[in-house]
């Protein structure tokens, strides 16, 4: 199973991996590239990863979700240059009932944001380029800093809304 891809994410492909006649509830989360960050206009993003560890960590997270709930889970994270509106991450969880599917889906995206070594560089309309969570952006808010897991988890869904 490869969780990272440099190709566009196709949700139906992920759904097909986990859906089955016994799993009637399918919960999906999509993260898409947003056109603003802290009040500044974003033109595009460039995602990179420590691929070997990212694959291993995604595998661990999926295994945790599948042992904690009666679900089948899969995910994709895209790397490379993405434009506004492109899907950067997709998580799909399928279960006999919706509650477990929603819980597992939420768990996987939160843990991915907290633990998987992926980085993004933001290209702003004013011509500046910044690594998210580092440099000036990091000094301003420190929002993406890994050591503050609570803040990171709390910010997760809002960022992709």
């Amino acid at each position: 199973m490869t969780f990272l891809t440099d190709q566009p994410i196709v949700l139906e492909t992920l759904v097909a991996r986990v859906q089955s006649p016994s799993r009637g509830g399918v919960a999906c989360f999509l993260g898409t590239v947003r056109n603003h960050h802290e009040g500044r206009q974003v033109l595009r993003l460039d995602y990179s990863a420590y691929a070997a560890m990212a694959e291993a960590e995604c595998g661990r997270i999926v295994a945790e979700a599948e042992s904690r709930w009666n679900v089948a889970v899969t995910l994709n994270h895209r790397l490379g240059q993405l434009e506004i509106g492109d899907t950067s991450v997709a998580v799909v969880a399928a279960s006999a009932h919706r509650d477990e599917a929603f819980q597992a889906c939420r768990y996987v995206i939160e843990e991915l944001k907290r633990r998987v070594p992926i980085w993004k560089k933001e290209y702003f309309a004013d011509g500046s380029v910044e690594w998210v969570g580092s440099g000036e952006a990091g000094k301003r808010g420190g929002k993406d800093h890994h050591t503050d897991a609570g803040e990171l988890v709390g910010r997760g869904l809002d960022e992709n809304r």
Partner: protein
Amino acid sequence: MQSQTGSTVSVRVLLFGSYAESLGLDAVELVLDKPATVASAVDHLRALPQGERLPPRPLCALNLTQTRMDAALSSGDELAVLPPLAGG
């Protein structure tokens, strides 16, 4: 720097994202005196040109798993120094 003997460990260090850009390198072999730890490897990196741009206690991974700064290093280990994560 000492040659590879019983008194040193040789580890491969990977840098990513903003850290790789700051130091101008994404991989380096370090030969460290025993007993070597993640912290001593980071100290070594911080002594390189532009190394002061690394925080004293960055997030690190040892052989693909997040690790503590006091973890011991053995020859052949792969140590990765990870900027603040920003996936999703």
